[in-house]
């Protein structure tokens, strides 16, 4: 339900759109903020996990007796210690991923865990656990995993529309589009067929997963953890542990980055099982190696494109076949890849087919616009190559085919007002586009799309007796959202930003809130905050009407005060929020506003990225010289943090394009489980990242807000590939574009 079908036409913002200081700033610059690993409890034990050294193995026996006998060990758990409860398939997969059952499915898969009095005792105990494995053949690469004779991870997990005869690791098929591809291709002046590949990358949040679990003998349990969604943790862990949701209270710590990677659980059910068995609080903190081996990177991909274009740049047909491996369980983001691949374009003939594939790698988790960056890499590279072959301007080609209001997208929806064309026109007029380039330098552009989500949201807003305001919301603040909520509440109530404090509730203190994902928080929680503020305003107008002895309808809220309005209201001095709060006890009791909603109308988002690179022909090394992001944010609530989302997404994309990759040996063991060898961009790799915020109002939000967090990682892979291809004089179709790969491409032409 969209609360407001139309934008209010509100343009005279007083607080929204300013660059206020965030409320958690001082805590975070002084070291006071408490993240996942910063919590302790009296009598706390240290929990640690034993992980499979094999990529694929049957677990024939586990002997924990020696570990249990070690002094200081309070509990050892294996899969057998989890309750035998009925679970849906998705939750069963989460449990099996947190603690292996019959088989270890990837290097790093958890097989047992201990709780001990200290870190050193826990480490010793892990060495005393004897696991017998029967090693099985494994498969890592997506195209290998799809073969009919590939080692099968599971039996019976294929959904019905997977054609007979395909390998057991192909678990689902998706198809989107309209028109007739062959007819479209026949009208083209040039047709391109090309295959593109991307490697698995990790979200790379700097804070490893951490939690602290306590389980009382009465079955009441408490969990503190770093997560993007405390309610998701509650619901998943309660199901796995056989608890009712009201018995498990989950509190979200400050979160040290997530980017989608903290939208599921990895250690939380294990910590609860250890706490239950030991009767003591158990704290677990992952090492970086564990994070890389056993949490969720994104999928690797292999994508075939067929695309036709006329001499004047019209795309006559676009076809993509996308193959994504999402690790050891079904659920790679290929469906969203197939939906988003051609989303920026208005095409008569378009079709995408997506294949979800399992392989002996860690279970993938969401990573910022999951599934879209790889699809955009393929499509935007193909558009670039066709445009170059036909001697066309890359921005003009995109403008010619750009989706607009009323366009039927390849995934089925018809767009309302959208901002793609505005980002392209702004890019064309920007000085970056006309700046000169030197030798071995190239410029690339690419567009990107993301859906944005709304979802289940609850907000409570309390007017305190002294006339200040508390907003209570249920989504962990991953990049300044408490500031945004306080700003929207202040805007709506007409009070200064400093008088509003926003806090994040635990699961027992507020109703269900969906995970902080899909760029939903500023949109959906913002919308609920505005609605809660409006409810409080209605109540305050009612109280003023009571004091003045007039009808409620004769009172309006303007500039932070109730005012009489209309011919029969009479003359009364305005009552401010503080005036009304001070006498609330005498006019009916405390004043609060609430909003509970499953928000729709999130408003899709588009961006165009422009990047200049220089390629060293001697080494193949790529340097990013200049980077500009053009993105439609809807109304930018806090422009600093909108820019920050643009910049952060672009730089994660730079890492994905140039350096980052999961590297496996022949044995199926991950060879680079650390930040030394899994190399994310550092400050000296980069220039400043310029940003241009466009504000095309989202009709589904009272202030026109859209999500902004994810779109920014969609264009960079292709924009950089297009730039490097121009600089090197050779088309790059596989990521990462590491120096050896670029050098080889230059040498072989």
């Amino acid at each position, binding site marked *: 339900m969209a609360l407001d079908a139309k934008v209010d036409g509100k343009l005279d913002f007083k607080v929204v759109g300013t660059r206020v200081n965030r409320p958690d700033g001082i805590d975070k*610059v002084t*070291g006071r903020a408490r993240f996942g690993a910063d919590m302790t409890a009296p009598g706390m034990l240290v929990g640690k996990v034993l992980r499979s050294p094999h990529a694929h193995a049957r677990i024939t026996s586990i002997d924990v007796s020696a570990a249990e006998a070690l002094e200081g060990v309070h509990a050892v758990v294996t899969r057998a210690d989890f309750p035998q409860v009925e679970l849906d398939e998705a939750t069963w997969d989460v449990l099996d991923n947190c603690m292996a059952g019959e088989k270890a499915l990837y290097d790093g898969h958890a097989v047992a865990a201990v709780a001990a009095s200290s870190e050193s005792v826990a480490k010793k105990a892990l060495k005393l656990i004897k696991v017998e494995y029967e090693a099985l053949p494994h498969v890592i690469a997506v195209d290998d995993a799809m073969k009919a004779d590939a080692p099968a991870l599971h039996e019976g997990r294929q959904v019905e529309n997977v054609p007979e005869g395909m390998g057991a690791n192909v678990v689902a098929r998706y198809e989107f589009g309209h028109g007739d591809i062959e007819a479209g291709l026949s009208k083209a002046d040039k047709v391109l067929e090309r295959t593109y590949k991307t490697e698995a990358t990790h979200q790379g949040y700097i804070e490893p997963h951490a939690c602290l679990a306590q389980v009382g003998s009465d079955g009441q349990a408490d969990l503190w953890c770093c997560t993007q969604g405390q309610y998701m943790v509650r619901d998943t862990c309660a199901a796995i542990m056989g608890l009712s949701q009201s018995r498990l209270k989950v509190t979200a710590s400050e979160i040290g980055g997530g980017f989608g990677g903290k939208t599921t659980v990895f250690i939380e059910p294990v910590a609860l099982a250890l706490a239950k068995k030991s009767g003591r609080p158990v704290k677990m903190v992952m090492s970086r190696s564990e994070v890389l081996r056993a949490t969720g990177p994104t999928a690797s991909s292999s994508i075939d494109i067929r695309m036709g274009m006329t001499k004047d740049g019209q795309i006559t047909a676009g076809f993509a076949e996308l193959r994504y491996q999402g690790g050891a369980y079904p659920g790679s983001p290929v469906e969203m890849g197939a939906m988003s691949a051609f989303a920026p374009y208005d095409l008569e003939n378009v079709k995408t087919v997506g294949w979800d594939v399992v392989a002996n790698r860690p279970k993938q988790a969401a990573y910022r616009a999951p599934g879209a960056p790889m699809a955009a890499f393929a499509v935007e590279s193909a558009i670039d190559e066709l445009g170059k072959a036909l001697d066309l301007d890359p921005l003009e080609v995109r403008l010619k085919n750009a989706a607009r209001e009323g366009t039927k997208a390849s995934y089925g929806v018809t767009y309302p007002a959208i901002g793609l064309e505005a980002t392209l026109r702004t890019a064309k007029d920007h000085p970056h586009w006309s700046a000169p380039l030197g030798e071995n330098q190239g410029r690339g552009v690419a567009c990107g799309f993301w859906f944005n989500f709304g979802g289940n949201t609850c907000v409570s807003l309390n007017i305190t007796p002294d006339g200040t305001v508390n907003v209570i919301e249920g989504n962990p603040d*991953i*990049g*300044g959202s408490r500031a945004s909520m306080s700003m929207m509440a202040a805007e709506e109530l007409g009070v200064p930003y400093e008088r509003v404090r926003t806090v994040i509730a635990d699961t027992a203190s507020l109703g269900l809130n969906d995970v902080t994902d899909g760029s939903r928080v500023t949109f959906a929680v913002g919308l609920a905050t505005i609605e809660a503020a409006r409810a409080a305003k209605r109540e305050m107008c009612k109280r003023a009407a009571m004091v003045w002895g007039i009808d409620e309808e004769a009172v309006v809220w303007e500039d932070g005060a109730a005012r009489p309005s209309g011919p029969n209201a009479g003359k009364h001095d305005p009552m401010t929020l503080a005036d009304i709060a001070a006498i609330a006890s005498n006019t009916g009791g405390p004043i609060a506003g609430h909003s509970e909603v499953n928000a729709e109308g999130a408003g899709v988002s588009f961006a165009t990225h422009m990047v200049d690179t220089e390629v060293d022909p001697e080494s193949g090394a790529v340097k990013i010289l200049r980077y500009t992001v053009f993105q439609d944010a809807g109304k930018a609530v806090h422009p600093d943090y909108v820019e920050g989302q643009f910049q952060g997404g672009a730089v994660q994309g730079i890492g994905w394009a140039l350096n980052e990759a999961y590297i496996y040996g022949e044995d199926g063991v991950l060879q680079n489980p650390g930040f030394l060898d899994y190399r994310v961009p550092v*400050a000296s790799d980069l220039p400043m990242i310029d940003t241009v915020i466009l504000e095309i109002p989202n009709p589904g939000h009272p202030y026109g807000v859209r999500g902004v967090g994810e779109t920014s990682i969609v264009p960079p892979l292709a924009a950089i590939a297009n730039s490097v291809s121009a600089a090197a004089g050779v088309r790059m179709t596989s990521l990462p574009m590491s120096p050896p790969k670029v050098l080889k491409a230059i040498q072989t032409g």
Partner: protein
Amino acid sequence: MSMIHVTTTINGVAQEYLCEADETLLDVLRDRLGMTGSKEGCGTGDCGACSVTVDDRLVCSCLMLGAEAEGRKVETIEGMAEGETLHPLQRKFIEHAALQCGICTPGILVAAKSLLEHNPNPTEEEARYWLAGNLCRCTGYDKIIRAVMAAAEEMREAS
């Protein structure tokens, strides 16, 4: 295991503690002294989230043993503000929105303070190379570098 007795100075205050022989300085700070401002992002010296200074030298506290702090002068993020007065770097980080999640922020602030003590007038490139050992995954470093340069300018003007 017998414990090692250590006498050291942390943020200007004399401090004694007992630690195991294989315990890192980061473990001691976080788990024995309750100073959780220094963060563990990797445990291998690659991310810089645990940055502290020891005798005015910038180190990763995850790569140094707690026992090695004997007789040294350790400075952590907890000692950066003077009472309620933030260090200019801390203030500029807030004003420039140089943090999103904030987990890398303590380490980057400690490293940036060390930079400005060694070089009060760094170029952007010098700041980027000095901070190359501190990973931030949220910001793309743009606003961090701007905040450091703004703090450097303010500190030069004040001195």
